[in-house]
């Protein structure tokens, strides 16, 4: 990761880095709304806009964790609201199995989280982000599965 600076993993002033995959039509707009409405949320989050939460390839999540990201958030439209009608339903199944499998393997629960955030839910977006950061802070810096430099 290029912005190593912001994630100095020194115990005392460590700030987690969260990667958020936001669907273009709802959650990204929700995040945008949070911004334009001047709703504060912590700056630990980096956003990757995706067309749909159904677009999330589980490899994205794993690659993020391997690269040293401390937490991943996947967020899409509420059920029934998908711009592509069923993308988030299909995505939900992938999320469910992926989450269960990672948990089974022993990847700390809370590293990977999921949410529905609509374009009108700026407040919810900031709440979700705060919750994710709170959970990840409890877990501390990611260590499992992070590729070492040596």
């Amino acid at each position, binding site marked *: 990761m290029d912005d190593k600076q912001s994630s100095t993993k020194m115990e005392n002033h460590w700030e987690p880095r969260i990667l958020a995959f936001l669907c273009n039509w709802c959650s990204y707009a929700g995040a945008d709304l949070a911004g334009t409405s001047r709703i504060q949320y912590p700056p630990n989050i980096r956003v990757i806009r995706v067309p749909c939460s159904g677009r999330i390839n589980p490899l994205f999540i794993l690659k993020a964790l*391997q690269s040293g990201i401390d937490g991943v958030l996947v967020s899409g439209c509420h059920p029934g609201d998908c711009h592509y009608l069923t993308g988030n339903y299909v995505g939900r199944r992938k999320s469910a199995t992926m989450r269960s*499998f990672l948990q089974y393997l022993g*990847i700390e629960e809370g590293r990977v989280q999921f949410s529905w955030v609509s374009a009108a839910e700026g407040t919810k977006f900031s709440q979700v982000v705060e919750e994710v950061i709170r959970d990840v802070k409890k877990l501390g810096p990611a260590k499992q599965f992070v590729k070492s430099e040596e």
Partner: protein
Amino acid sequence: MLNTEERSKAIQAKIREKAKELLSSKKVDLIIGFGEGTLPLRTTPIFVRTPEEADRLIWNSFCENNLATYLHKLSQFKIGLVVKGCDARSVVALSHEKRFKPDQLFLIGVPCQRMVDRRRVEKAFEGEILHVSEQGDEIIVEGEDFEKTLKREDFLYPCCQVCIHRTPLKADVLVGDPVEESSLVKVHADMEEFEKKSPEERWRYFEKEVGRCIRCYACREACPMCYCTECFVDSSNPKWIDKGLSPSDIDFYHIVRAYHQSGRCSGCGACERACPMEIRLTYLTQKLNQDAKELFGFETGADPDAPPPLSTYDTDDRQEFIK
């Protein structure tokens, strides 16, 4: 009732008979089945093209390979395929993924007696095993200075012990009477054992197991469901993982190899049997299979009309984990 040896002999005769018929009537171009191996406890996949060669086909308790994996490189032929229950379910899963034309396959279904785990047998002896034969429901194991009779049932592959679809659910012909469908031991015992551990212990166990990986990809190649033209590990752009032995890259490979079987794995155990480093792999796919069943009521290959669970949805799917 016939014992295993007698039953195998009868099945073998029928496989040969059917193969000859299919080949002489040109219904198929070739038969993929099992032939005599050169080592005790082993058979080898063979490809039979003429009726005369059909007598090379055999059947016994060592026919462990899932032959469906060979279908991918033979897409231009009409194939007669010898399948056990698990292999047949792989074929069903593959047909969902449109891997072959409707009339391309002729499945010679064998109601399976559960296969003998060669490594389990080998580990029971100090010295090298030089000859093995099946007699009744027992296996006679001979070495340089020993001879011992083992109960076949004590030396089965773990995935065979728990199998409840030994009779192929889909076959064009069954070359034996259907067998009783029940598990010999508790299903998914490995998984349950694993789940009892703490998350840290689980991760450590996973890392220790795959830590022996030599990235030969035998698990991938042996699996009939691993047929991507370009596997994610081989992609250079995007490059998902590096090709060395960094633990993180190896973890990555094994997580994705397994997870990609979500809703597709027949639980045949080919991946684990193929591994030269004896890495435990089926406890991973067991979990995926259990999730498919629990979350989506799906069992790979059990219902030819049920679409693969990750290609469909239900508006009422569980979502309590989503904020």
